[in-house]
């Protein structure tokens, strides 16, 4: 049963990391344009010459 004492802080820590990542995304403006982002993935941004 002692394994729980390690596993739960670990799970919480991972969750907190996710939350931190979400806040970081918000701050860096990733939710400002939800439509454009979907298309940007498909853009061909090879080097132009």
């Amino acid at each position, binding site marked *: *049963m002692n394994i729980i004492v390690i596993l739960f802080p670990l*799970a919480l820590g991972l*969750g907190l990391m996710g939350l931190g990542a979400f*806040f970081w995304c*918000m701050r860096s403006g990733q939710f*400002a344009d939800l439509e454009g982002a979907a298309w940007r993935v498909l*853009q061909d941004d090879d080097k*132009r010459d």
Partner: protein
Amino acid sequence: MAAQDLSVFVRHRDGGVASMELAVDGIRCAGCMQAIESGLGREPGILGARVNLALKRVSVEWREALLRPEAVVDKLAALGFKAYPFVPERQEDGAAAEERSLLRRLGVAGFASMNIMLLSVAVWSGNSADIDPTTRDFFHWLSALIALPTAAYAGRPFFESALRALKVGAVNMDVPITIGVVLALAMSVAETWNHGRHAYFDGVVMLLFFLLIGRYLDQLMRRRTRDLAGNLAALKAETATRLDADGNWTVTPIAAIAPGDRVLVRPGERVSVDGIVETGRSELDQSLVTGETAPVAIGHGERVHAGTLNLTGALTVHVEAAGQGTLLDEIDRLMSQAVGSRSRYVRLSDRAARLYAPVVHTLAAATFLGWFAWGLAWPEALMIAVTVLIITCPCALGLAIPAVQVVAASALFKRKIMLKEGDALERLAEADIAVFDKTGTLTLPEPDILNPEALPPERRAAIGALAAASNHPLAQALARALGGAPARTDVQEERGQGLSAGAGDDEQRLGSIVFCGAEAEAASVKALHPGASLIAYRHGGYRTVLALGQSLRPEARETIAALRAAGLEIAILSGDRSEAVAPIAAELGVTHVRAGLLPGDKLNLLDSMAANGRKVLMVGDGLNDAPALAGAHVSISPVSATHLAQAAADVVFLGDSLAPVAAALEIARKARGLMLQNLWFAVLYNAVAVPIAIAGLATPLVAAIAMSGSSLVVTLNALRARGRRAQSEAEA
């Protein structure tokens, strides 16, 4: 031509970097996005361009030393996009900050509910097997550790709103939410303390999570509306010619004009400010302001209003207000009178809340008293009563309406219709009579050629070049209608007569009937188009007469038919003379017509319709329509409308076609249907869940399943507001 000056829109940053936000007309797809970004990126001096596809905006950064802001607009024009700069709202501003804080709370609540659920699932499966009570207590305490700070942080919007309501002695939806959350948390802590089997930490946090989603969607909708309103203002791209301190005239965006400036208004231009005439005499066409089409003489010391058209002479105007606009005293008085009637409308969600709160609290109290009387100890009775509060907590109710509004608003946006008020959808769906203004609403705002058959295609360019050489409003309108050909330079203008170019047999003339000797042709055209202004053209022996007048907006007939088919009565209320209104009404087959109305008359007629129980949809664009737009049950304006009319309208549509009016009605009706369905679903859900809770059978597991299940159903149902038909048409 005076120089353009856009410097007011530029923001300066360290290191000589300038940036500007532009609203761009015609960004439709990812291709446009890439064309703009890579096109601007290739330019030397431009450091970066970023398109926001959702808002149809682009923000550009460049080295200040290398480029003027005007050059950025020119470069976008060269790429094929018309761009209009504007001053973006600052991030710290109210609505934006509110939205971000809600999103943060939503994130925290989501994180907490996932982690508590992790613990709760273990407890639930353990409860049905043989969980060690010490382990269960440990899990419950861990849950409390996560839930209590989360509730304090994520629940604040609800607690604050409930307190505000209670302070003024009112009850809103947040009061039962707050009571439920606080009681459930207190009970769960007490239960954990006493080594109990059930704790509701997961239910409380999940409830907050779902409610925050609804709250966030509501805020998103409002914010989007404000952003689009910003785009609309920019798309109008109004400018004025300002006299600078150094004596030069500069074309300046209206946003940069301040009271006290002096601006020049040339003949043929629309006045873009309110002010007092300093020098010059002229005649004004005030049809957009008063609805009356006959010109009015104006001179020194008299007042001009934005939206009027300067006809004959140049005016210098001392600016009193720009952008927002001072009002005609009469309109001002009517506006304050009109706004009251709309505020009487009670939103669907508020009506639901008024019914909901007393019922739920009575039920919970009755449950407690009932079980207590039955002989249960008071802590157990209280616990059952609290489960009733938790299970009835309006998470489906909180999502039911915002989710539909957001989905419907984006469906409208795809069809170039912008919703300015969230509850406009509900009101629009209720409309049973559509009242149209004529000038600029049923008809296009700019005059058009009414008899294109009199204009041979091979002569279009010649006539256009001649017309473009004149300042006369009629000639200007003709030049615009012919596609804005460059003006001929060798043109003589004879005041009050017309224009001529060339000599002998090759002489071309454009102007009055007499000037061109076209009386014979004019007679038949006049008979066909009685309300129109006639302009004649002669080239050697060839003569033709063009009728210029207000032509119907594209798809006006189909729209009127569609509104009729939807069960709406159609009426036209116009400020114009009845001779001008009658042909339009006859063409559309509308019989309920009133002409020659003052702004106050329109409002009175609308009020009397409302008094007869009619729900009026007002469609108008003029300053004279503004009180009627504000006073109607719901109102729609075209984007060409005056500032005040647009501010008063609930819905604004882009483009020339009138079809968005019918489309908006269709989507609004569908959305209202879905809102009602969602509310009925919430009632049905409670009808099943409440008896279970009253019987004392609702475990935390039951509460979790009921809550998430009902929220999911309501959200999925809301997605149907997109409308399969509307969607495919918009994409076509």
